[in-house]
């Protein structure tokens, strides 16, 4: 049960392996990958910036809330910070549970909450040379 901010590529295999438990029968994971386009513009790269102390607190609060709301065995999430290119993994969420209902519901709850409240910002760099801090309140949101 941990929320991690990482400046290096996320090791999905280590995260997944750590969550395996003989009493868990189902495991659901979600991955957010960096896309090569956003609202019709070609994306070359992006950078995630976090307010780290608060992001860690908020991420852990979300995982605790998932544990309280759903009958899960364990939950973990890791978010990249720093520069990424299309195809790279931006965020990973994994949930194990005795039954698949709880695994799916908790995984969905966690990624939605991360996107909604964890203080992380995305700076996109486009192939036309422009760049912007993505503001979901200004533009229809993606992924």
């Amino acid at each position, binding site marked *: 049960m941990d929320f991690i901010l990482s400046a290096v590529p996320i090791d999905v295999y280590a995260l997944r392996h750590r969550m395996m438990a003989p009493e868990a029968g189902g495991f659901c994971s979600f991955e957010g990958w960096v896309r090569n386009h956003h609202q019709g513009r070609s994306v070359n790269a992006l950078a995630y910036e976090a307010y780290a102390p608060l992001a860690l607190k908020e991420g852990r609060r979300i995982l605790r809330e998932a544990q309280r709301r759903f009958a899960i065995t364990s939950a973990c999430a890791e978010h990249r910070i720093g520069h990424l290119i299309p195809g790279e993994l*931006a965020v990973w969420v994994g949930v194990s549970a005795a039954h698949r209902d709880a695994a799916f519901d908790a995984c969905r709850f966690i990624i939605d909450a991360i996107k909604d409240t964890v203080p992380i910002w995305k700076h996109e760099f486009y192939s036309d040379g422009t760049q912007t*801090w993505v503001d979901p309140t200004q533009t229809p949101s993606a992924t």
Partner: protein
Amino acid sequence: MKQIKILYFGQLRQARGLAEETVNTPAETLAELFTLQSASHGLTLASRHLKMARNDEFCPPAEALCDGDTVAFLPPVCGG
């Protein structure tokens, strides 16, 4: 006057041109501090889209500032 450390993130950091600064301010609340900084530096984020934190905890804008506080101005988040 209170001495406050201010942290800027994302589009606000870009607009302010720096990630943090320490100011001496007459502001009584976090909201007042943002209004003053916004007027001085042309920060344009609408307050309905702004969240704030004090000493690494989310904090309502109406809360009182204390000398020595660290305040963060948080534009709309975009993780995931």
